[in-house]
């Protein structure tokens, strides 16, 4: 090791041998708004330039290293994992380059300390490092670092002072591994910079090493960095001035170019290889982690603990004895778990589920591993594996070496309890959520780039609104002109150019919807943990793809509204059953063979039922006519873009009803597609086809699965896999036609496809919700309303549907309603105060409490006085009473809306004797509301009216002027044959125009008797787009279509009747 200025090595000598140089200062776009290139691009470029290694030094983060690691392995170069850390100064501010050090761990322990150190910076929210003490802490923990301090020249000589302060401290710990880094700034000061650096090198006895402070992989990306700098500094490009660099020289340069630029100090260029030698001994592959151990006092091993829990659970689930087939499956699964050492993972999941159960939080696991017998016995899932035997084979793929996949859904309102339990149970240093890297999409990119280019917000909004019609690639001058924008405007042109360039760039880090990483050892030693924006939450710096790449296990703790609804339903039902002395029902005791439930599903009478309530699902139900649990699994999976785009729906239906023969080329295909009649409907089937028929290795199949998601964007990837699959199938003796068909079907999964394991779990919830709807419609209605917002339908439609099923629904009333919707003793549903817009829960609960304790309240003043006496902490607000009056909730007091409002406006701050308030003269002079107005105000306040359906108000006019009939009378009129024309009118409750429907619009109209499903052809829609999109109510004339018991209408003409309704209701 020599000094920068003393070691003599001539450029000409080096030229004779191969020029070796590795870049040691590279910032990727995971430093957020500080770089113009992705890690993959930088690594690929470095490999192309012949670098032996590349050092990633993002700004206070290790967020981009996994991607760089993957790319480096792919391109066969070494990745040096490092980080740029501030030495002093206010480093969170927008200074371009504060004094900093490039820190490279040389061992795993060094890496762990670096990760902990970065976590501390973020968790302690340090904004200024004014002394060397903090940095010293890092080096005290581990000495396995190489530190490079890049030279920065400032006129106040602060750098020299800073170096004098830091070097002795750092050298004390890391001795020979401290370097001074020099880059060409290409400013007028460069000569001075080199001279001063050499002087400092001698002065402090520090070897010199060359870097290029790389911010982008090619010079063309300079504009991206400049634009992102403007975003970071919240300034326009016109005003940014000298805050951006004056040139685009910070790209990856060839080793030859670097030697030429630093011809005075070739030894400093060559020294990069010396550092590569020191640092490359550590790689991300050395990281390993373990699931936490679930300990108890018995001292048994984790596997023994798991086996014991599984068999206790099995005894509970199989009350009549464990069937032999289950025992066999359990043996197999436990053996596999033992072999792959996943016992801790399953125990962790069980711990979480046990907690949820102890708090009466309903949960349901899904995913490949979740649908195993082990999970069924542990109570992670309620799907009985005996009902779907195929799933045993998809338990945990030993060959593919992919981590087990368990997602657990919890009640959406109570998931936070589970999350906080995980933090408390395993410790905040051992558990964290996965990150979600929010990347620029077209609209966000347009907004930021528009601001950078100086466009006003209104113009940006105009482009954004207009761009809905564009796909990202075809923004032409014509399409810009059509929207009133000048395509030749420089700011607009540059905005669109930049927008295209930065789409896909990381914008900031957010938290994953529910992916939890739990570790035996502190997690911050594997990856930095940073606090999330939400209080009491922490996230790691890597996203789900990163952790999957490193084989780290995660559990998805997800929220599902239907589970809240089911838990409420079970409470209401079991309370009722208890009174009758019947056994309580639970998710796993729902009968899977209830004919009445399947009949209801077959009629598409599924409003509110989980997953099968959308228009598309409802139109499929009468065609598929599910009769067993597995039919529901198929129903859940079949109405997805994947099977639809892969043309799998119609072949399946034809085969199901015997219109097409089910044939298989051989037993292999039969084994894979047998259950789905030769048509691949699930994602797993697509992958197994690739493995068994095209000879894919498990690793390739895994690549195929990941690539599927990106197929829409990358045609070249499709072509690569297409050729591979077809060649593989031909080689295995299948016909080209069969291979092409399979490829077409697999390609369909590039759209959203459903795995069978998830569909199976969802199907159970479908079955449970349908069963409750069929047998306990009132309880189902109340639970659905109490779990809002969820599902496809608004409360009005849920209530109307319940009424159509014979449920009596009572409107909200101050003396009778609780905060939530309840079931009255008579069995009718009493709407709760929660549906009234603008009322706080605490206020509603206070009123319910007052009524419960005081009994019936005859006047508003009574309520006001009682609240004054009762609530010392939560005062009853006048606004709450106004909202209640607007909802007509004082009927039991004999007050109309306006009368109640009159009374409420007269309330004084303190309670007063009753008579003083009574003002019958004033009250009697208030104008009365018409019936139509009352219905209208009901809708305005609560979203529905128990008094009447709006369409019933105009029924006489509809009958007379339009010859329109109620839907019930049409549906039940057996004289109306298939193809008969009729007219129907109703409120538009849903409009859907799915991409898969080729321009067809699906409408649902609701009248006082039921819901009509209307199909509007593309031509008719284009002629009446305004009415179809904007009108709140329509009159439709069309032809009747019957599929079994299901009747719908194909529209021939459409007309808006919003004005007519307005007249009656205002």
């Amino acid at each position, binding site marked *: 090791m020599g000094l920068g200025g003393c070691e003599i090595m001539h450029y000409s000598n080096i030229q004779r041998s191969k020029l070796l140089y590795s870049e040691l200062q590279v910032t990727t776009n995971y430093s957020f708004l500080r770089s113009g290139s992705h890690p993959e691009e930088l690594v690929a470029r470095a490999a192309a330039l012949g670098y032996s290694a590349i050092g990633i030094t993002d700004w206070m983060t290790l967020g981009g290293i996994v991607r760089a690691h993957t790319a480096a392995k792919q391109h066969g170069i070494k990745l040096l994992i490092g980080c740029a850390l501030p030495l002093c100064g206010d480093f969170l501010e927008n200074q371009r380059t504060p004094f900093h050090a490039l820190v490279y761990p040389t061992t795993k322990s060094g890496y762990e300390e670096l990760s902990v150190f970065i976590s501390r910076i973020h968790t302690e929210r340090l904004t200024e490092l004014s002394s060397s003490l903090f940095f010293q802490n890092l080096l005290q923990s581990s000495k396995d670092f190489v530190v490079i301090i890049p030279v920065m020249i400032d006129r106040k000589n602060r750098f020299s002072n800073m170096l004098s302060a830091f070097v002795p401290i750092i050298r004390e710990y890391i001795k020979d591994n401290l370097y001074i880094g020099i880059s060409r700034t*290409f400013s007028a000061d460069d*000569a001075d910079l080199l001279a001063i650096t050499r002087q400092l090198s001698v002065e402090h006895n520090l070897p010199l090493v060359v870097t290029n402070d790389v911010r982008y992989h090619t010079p063309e990306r300079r504009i991206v960095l400049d634009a992102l700098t403007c975003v970071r500094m919240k300034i326009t490009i016109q005003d940014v*001035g000298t805050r951006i660099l*004056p*040139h685009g020289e910070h790209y990856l340069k060839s080793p030859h170019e670097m030697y030429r630029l630093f011809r005075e100090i070739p030894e400093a260029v060559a020294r990069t290889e010396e550092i590569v030698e020191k640092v490359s001994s550590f790689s991300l592959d050395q990281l390993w982690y373990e699931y936490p151990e679930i300990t108890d006092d018995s001292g048994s091993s984790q596997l023994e603990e798991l086996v014991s829990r599984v068999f206790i659970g099995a005894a509970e689930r199989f009350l009549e004895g464990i069937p032999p087939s289950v025992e066999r499956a359990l043996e197999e699964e436990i053996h596999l778990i033992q072999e792959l050492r996943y016992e801790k993972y399953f125990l962790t999941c069980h711990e979480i589920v046990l907690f949820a159960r102890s708090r009466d939080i309903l949960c349901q696991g899904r995913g490949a591993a979740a649908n195993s017998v082990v999970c069924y016995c542990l109570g992670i899932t309620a799907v009985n594996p005996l009902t779907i035997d195929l799933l045993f084979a998809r338990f945990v793929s030993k060959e593919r070496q992919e981590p087990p996949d368990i997602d657990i859904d919890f009640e959406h309102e109570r998931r936070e309890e589970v999350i906080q339990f995980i933090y408390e149970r395993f410790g905040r240093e051992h558990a964290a959520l996965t990150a979600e890297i929010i990347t620029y999409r077209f609209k966000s990119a347009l907004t930021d780039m528009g601001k950078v280019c100086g466009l006003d917000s209104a113009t940006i909004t105009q482009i954004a609104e207009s761009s809905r019609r564009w796909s990202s690639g075809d923004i032409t001058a014509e399409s810009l002109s059509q929207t009133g924008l000048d395509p030749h405007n420089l700011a607009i042109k540059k905005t669109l150019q930049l927008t295209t360039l930065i789409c896909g760039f990381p914008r900031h880090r957010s938290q994953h919807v529910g992916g939890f990483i739990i570790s035996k050892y502190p997690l911050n030693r594997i990856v930095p943990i940073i606090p999330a924006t939400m209080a009491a939450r922490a996230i790691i710096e890597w996203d789900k793809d990163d952790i999957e790449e490193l084989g780290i296990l995660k559990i998805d703790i997800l929220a599902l509204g239907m589970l809240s609804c089911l838990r409420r339903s079970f409470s209401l039902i079991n309370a009722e059953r208890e009174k009758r002395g019947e056994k309580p029902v639970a998710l796993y005791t729902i009968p899977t063979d209830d004919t009445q439930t399947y009949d209801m599903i077959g009629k598409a009478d599924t409003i509110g039922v989980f997953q099968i309530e959308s228009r598309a699902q409802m139109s499929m139900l009468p065609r598929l006519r599910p009769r067993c649990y597995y039919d529901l699994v198929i129903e859940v999976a079949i109405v997805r873009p994947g099977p639809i785009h892969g043309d799998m729906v119609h072949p399946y239906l034809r085969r199901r009803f015997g219109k097409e023969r089910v044939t298989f080329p051989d037993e292999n295909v039969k084994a894979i597609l047998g259950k789905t009649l030769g048509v691949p409907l699930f994602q797993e089937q697509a992958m197994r086809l690739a493995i068994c028929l095209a000879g894919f290795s498990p690793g390739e199949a895994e690549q195929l699965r990941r690539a599927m998601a990106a197929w829409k964007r990358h045609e070249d990837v499709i072509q690569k896999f297409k050729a591979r699959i077809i060649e593989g199938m031909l080689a295995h003796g299948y016909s080209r036609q069969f291979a092409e068909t399979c490829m077409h079907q697999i390609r369909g999964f590039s759209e959203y496809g459903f795995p069978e394991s998830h569909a199976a779990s969802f199907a159970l919830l479908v079955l449970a919700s349908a069963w409750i709807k069929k047998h306990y419609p009132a309880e189902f209605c109340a639970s659905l309303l109490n779990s809002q917002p969820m599902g496809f339908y608004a409360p009005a439609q849920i209530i109307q549907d319940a009424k159509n099923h014979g449920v009596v629904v009572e409107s909200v009333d101050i003396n009778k309603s609780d905060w939530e919707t309840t079931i009255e003793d008579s069995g009718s549903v009493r709407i709760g105060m929660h549906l009234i817009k603008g009322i706080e829960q605490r206020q509603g609960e206070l009123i319910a409490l007052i009524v419960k304790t005081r009994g019936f309240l005859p006047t508003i003043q009574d309520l006001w006085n009682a609240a004054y006496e009762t609530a010392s902490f939560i005062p009853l607000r006048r606004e709450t009473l106004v909202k209640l009056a607007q909802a007509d909730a004082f009927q039991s007091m004999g007050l109309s809306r306006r009368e109640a*409002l*009159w009374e409420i*406006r007269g309330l004084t701050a303190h309670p007063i004797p009753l008579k003083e308030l009574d003002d019958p003269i004033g009250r009697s002079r208030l*104008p009365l509301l018409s019936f139509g107005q009352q219905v209208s105000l009901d809708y305005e306040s609560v979203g529905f009216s128990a008094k009447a359906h709006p369409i019933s108000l105009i029924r006489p006019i509809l009958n007379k002027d339009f010859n329109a009939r109620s839907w019930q009378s049409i549906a039940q009129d057996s004289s109306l044959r298939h193809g008969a024309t009729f007219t129907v009118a109703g409120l538009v409750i849903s409009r859907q125009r799915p991409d898969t429907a080729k321009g067809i619009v699906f409408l649902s109209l609701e009248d006082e008797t039921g819901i009509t499903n209307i199909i509007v052809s593309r031509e008719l829609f284009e002629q009446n787009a305004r009415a179809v999109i904007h009108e709140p109510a329509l009159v439709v004339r069309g032809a009747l279509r019957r599929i079994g018991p299901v009747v719908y209408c194909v529209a021939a003409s459409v007309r808006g009747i919003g004005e007519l309704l307005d007249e009656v209701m205002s």
Partner: protein
Amino acid sequence: MYTERRNQREVVRASEHALQLGIYPHMSLSVAHTLCPEMISYRYDPEAEFSLLQKIALWCLTISPTVGIDSEYLTHYLKREICSPLFSGITIDLSGTERLHKGEERLISSIEKVFAKRGLAIRIAISSTIGKAWAHARFAPRVAFIDTSDSSSDTLSERSPQSTLYHYPIAALRLSEQLESQIAELGIKTIGQIFALPRKSLLKRFGDTLIERIEQFEGTRMEFIQQVSPAPSLVRIHNFEVPSNSSYEIAARAEPLYGSLTNTLALENKAPRSITVLLFSYPSQKIIWQRELFFFRRTTTKEFYDLLLSYLENNRTIRDVCKIQMAVLEAEQLLNEQPRFDGSVSRDSDRALRGFIGAISNRMGRSAIQQARVYDSHLPEESIGFEPIDSKLIRSPSPNYTIEDQPTRPSLFFHPGEPIRVLALLPDHPPKRMYLGQQMITIIVSFGPEKIEEPWFSEKQPSLRDYFRVCDSHGRWLWICHHRREKRWMLCGVWV
């Protein structure tokens, strides 16, 4: 007219025709355009609206001495809020002026004519109380309305429902939007309905604001007009008793006029930037001398005297001056300055500079003196510029960015520079020899390149420049530039 609110353009004012087409305030401008594609929209300018109202109000002073802009409008305007167009109006107190105008009909008719001549449509009403007049002006069936009903103390509820006022909406009571919606919620839509309710009950429910409006409407509670006053005159005149031929006397008489003008402007923390001085001769009363004078910052009366005298002294045409007229043409807002203990705020050096700049500006025009300014740009030709001395800063300089930060830039800068030919060994290396015309210059020392790319935010492809500091064999330091893309070399500066 529209304004921008939360990234949305929103209609704030609409013409009668637009209102009929369904365009109304608070509507999104894009929706309005959809309803009426041929619609013409302008950005709403509250200052211009206020200024117009003020001008109209000032004109109305010719009708009556008591005129005011509606107080609701003023409240919103001062809070920089946009108020409903309903509230923008002017109130005139006609008490005692009836004879002057020879009847209310004639007055209304003449006012209508005045506005029609200027293309302005107005609604106008005369009634016994401000409240009623306000209501009639907005809601009467005719654009010009005279309430001839008796203004005695009978309340509206006792009148027949046929009364015009009875059917006016409750908005005619000048209520806040919140109060109006609270009352409307009870189904009360017209003034007649509200007058039918017991006053005590109304007071309890809606507070005194409503009762105040009702009583002001009836005339049982006093209401005042916020009097509009004309802006102070910025013209001063002095008439000589005996025509003067003395420059000293004219300047001495003009000095207090200037003092008076500066004092008037000082009330608004302003100072004159330019004034015009006119001299009239006796007996023709014709202008014999006219001059526009510029001032740089605050100029004292003494300085003004000296300046004026310098113009008058040698002018032989100025004879028999009978009148001096002086008017402010332009005023500038002054910055608040901390006065010294002696009360003065200006520094001596500033005074000397001010005098110099004033003298030069008046001789050669205001653009004759320019000030050097440093801008935040990498490009040398854009990093420094000159602007008129009294102009506002167009581009803001970067903080902490001064000329001292640029020691590497030459003291004499040429833009675009002199073309040169060079002999350089490598593309981004400094030249060994250069030719300026026929002159050959040998370079012995060189530094660089300093790389500067022109901004990419432009139509043309940005040029890539390499600047070199070179020293020739005569010891001269030169700044030369290589335009890489155009393959041109230029001499761009010299250190002297």
